[in-house]
């Protein structure tokens, strides 16, 4: 027996839109089987994971707050992946953005440097530092690739661990709150160094708006600008991109800077929004989950908006499942992994017709 992949000549829009939905259904089915094997009720788990979070106001807000960093990172990643460049290290770039921006939050703690001109400049500068920190960190694998031909997949991934350990050292050392009873965490930033909430007493912060704006700009750039055209062409047909006169080295640096910058922005948004200080664990794996978001959203910024909400649901549902069903929190990550596999399989199935051949002519 052999398996043939025949390219589909006509790819319909329905197939393109349906594929992620089928993938999601498949992942839920597999997840249900695993939960059943663990001796729990799949129906109850489905309720806890996917229905309950959608029923209450606070958890809907929480959903948007969790989706925010996923959108920011995944929009950046979509530029990389469209150009056929594989930045797997968004988690590290997220941390660097959080650290560099957070550093200013620590420096200006307790109204330091805010004397004459006030503190209005701090938050914008923190956001800018976040972008810069993520972009510079992403440029390391990009430059290694351009200069030495090193695989960006490996270097970007390994730099994640460098960033994680670096953050850990900082919050236990130079950035540690001197009055923090030796906990590994920094001081809490001043309110003026925090992202404002959209409404009094609610969870939604300004980062959610920022994510929405970034997704719209991303969609516009990809669809309407020459740079977006260059990104798409380079991924689709690299030789044609060279023929079009586009410089692939410059492009590599550009898309890595964009995706790193947005991951860094997500980092500082998380640190200055949700958390308000630096801790050893500022990300529950957003940088990796965003890879799934990018693919589930078909590498389109608008699709990413939807996909980020779906993945945010698995985070919130996963937390609820820990409490209500005493399911291990690793279940969430396992489910995310299954979902990625299903998305990739569905993608292949939309591009190709899979045929099993048993040899005999019909």
């Amino acid at each position, binding site marked *: 027996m*052999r398996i043939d992949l*025949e390219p*589909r*000549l*006509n790819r319909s829009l329905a197939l393109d839109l349906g594929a992620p939905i089928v993938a999601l259904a498949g992942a839920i089915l597999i997840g249900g089987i695993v939960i059943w094997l663990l001796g729990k009720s799949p129906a109850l788990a489905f309720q806890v994971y996917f229905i309950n979070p959608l029923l209450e106001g606070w958890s809907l807000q929480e959903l948007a707050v969790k989706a925010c960093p996923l959108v920011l990172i995944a929009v950046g990643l979509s530029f990389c992946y469209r150009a056929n460049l594989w930045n797997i290290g968004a988690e590290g770039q997220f941390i660097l953005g959080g650290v560099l921006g957070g550093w200013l939050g620590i420096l200006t703690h307790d109204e330091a440097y805010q004397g004459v001109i006030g503190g209005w400049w701090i938050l914008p500068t923190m956001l800018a530092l976040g972008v810069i920190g993520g972009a510079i960190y992403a440029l390391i694998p990009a430059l290694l690739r351009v200069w030495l031909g090193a695989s960006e997949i490996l270097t970007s991934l390994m730099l994640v661990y460098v960033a994680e350990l670096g953050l850990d050292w900082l919050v236990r050392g130079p950035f540690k709150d001197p009055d923090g009873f030796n906990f590994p965490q920094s001081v809490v930033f001043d309110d003026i160094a925090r992202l404002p909430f959209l409404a009094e007493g609610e969870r939604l912060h300004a980062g959610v708006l920022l994510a929405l704006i970034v997704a719209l700009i991303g969609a516009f750039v990809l669809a*309407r*600008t*020459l*740079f977006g*055209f260059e990104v*798409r*062409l380079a991924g*689709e*047909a690299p*030789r*044609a991109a*060279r*023929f*079009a*006169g586009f*410089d692939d080295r410059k492009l590599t640096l550009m898309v890595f800077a964009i995706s790193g910058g947005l991951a860094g922005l997500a980092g500082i948004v998380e640190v200055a929004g949700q958390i308000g200080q630096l801790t050893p664990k500022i990300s529950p794996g957003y940088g990796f989950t965003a890879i799934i978001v990018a693919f589930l959203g078909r590498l389109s910024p608008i699709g990413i908006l939807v996909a980020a909400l779906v993945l945010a649901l698995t985070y919130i549902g996963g937390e609820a499942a820990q409490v209500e069903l005493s399911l291990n929190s690793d279940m969430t990550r396992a489910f995310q992994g299954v979902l990625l596999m299903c998305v990739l399989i569905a993608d292949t199935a939309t591009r190709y*017709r899979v045929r099993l*051949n048993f*040899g*005999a*002519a*019909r």
Partner: protein
Amino acid sequence: MIAQQETRATPLLSMRGIVKRFGSFTANDDISLDIHEGEAHALIGENGAGKSTLVKIIYGLLEPTEGEILFRGKPMRLNGPQEARAQGVGMVFQHFSLFDNLTVAENIALVLPGDAPISALRGRILEVAERYRMPLDPDREVWSLSAGERQRIEIARCLLQDPRLIILDEPTSVLTPQEAFALFETLDRLKAEGRALLYISHKLEEVRRLCETATILRLGRKVGSCDPRQESSRSLAALMVGSAINDIQAPSTRAFGGERLTLDNLSLPSQEIHGVDLDGVSLRLRGGEVFGIAGVAGNGQSELFEAVSGERLAESNYTILLDGVSVGLRDITARRGLGAAFVPEERNGHAAAGDFSLTENLILSRHAGAGLTSRGLINFDKARALAQEVIKTFDVRKAGPDPAARTLSGGNLQKFVVGREILSEPKVLVINQPTWGVDAAAAATIRQALVDLAARGASVLLISQDLDELFETCDRIAVMHEGRLSDPRDARNVTREEIGLLMTGDGHGESAHAH
């Protein structure tokens, strides 16, 4: 006696009502044909007519959707090419599948069943080489061989399995005229031994020379069969295309203007292993002139295209001049800005991106000119209008208003790609293998467009392996061999034989003894 007669009448291979569908697309529609022992049977038709699909079915690479195949009167069911070979069907592919860094004998050993020692194989290779007059050194590494020699490896490894039916897919497309002649002598011997040949080609002269029977395919159907020796090339072509082909109309007067493209001792080492270095290439191309570069594929033509187009920069700014401006160190966009346009050999993935719409493919090479972009934004309305203009002027057949490039047939996509460049009214057009794998009608349109462009005062540099094409369109022809360019000859005063000799390296003076 009667039984014996019946045996002789039973065809070696008989296809009955073969249908092959890919999804909703029917590549072969109810095709039947018989091939007898000792017969050379031609399969002719334009690209996309279904020839390759049909032979892949015979060779076990594809299964028919409907219909049956009889081999010596018995139904044949194949699960892959190894079973086809075991039954006595061999195939010589158009594109060789050889390992450059292995020797001839090693390459052959790789595909033979069993594990005979190479030393024993050497003897058998030499025996086959001797018997069919195909000089072949079992110990040479493949990278050092010419295309003709590589093809002999493919033929030898096919013959070592003693096939009764040999399928040859466009075997002369990479050969010089002299190499093709030698191939025909080998094929005549195979026929004389009672082996059957299924010969795929669109070169009708060859078919007339070699084959007794021809099956003609058009759009997946069999439209006729004939004895090609009784037909003219022109009548065969009409059968293939379904209509008569126009001759190229040359301009009545030829007046050459000033120098538009100059290459001055252009040398450029190849970046690839076993690639070809450009070695002191010089030429002067005047306005109004079509200048042809002949040569067997892989003698530096693609390297030359890369260098002239600016996809790869030269080592000195002064080796390439466009309209008198030195551009050796300026990139392809800058060269386009000076009025040059380029058409690379490969349509899919080089000249065009398959999943992009035709409008986007227009932007691909013309984004810097024609006001298509301002401040980084693309003017899609303008691009769409220009794409439609190309489609209309060059009669590009397609489904839907602005389909993805990959949905077009080879000929139609090539017309679009050539039209895209020509409608920018370039002063210099550099074009590589413009009609490779293109149907005859589209090829005629493209050649006419090149001649017309030159008549409007532009210079056209035409790189081609197709001698008919070069003689039909060019004013002067030079030959590329191992990265060197011969002196140009006047196309009206040079014979095919002279060009053929230059293609093999003879007539280059010292370069003939390069190895």
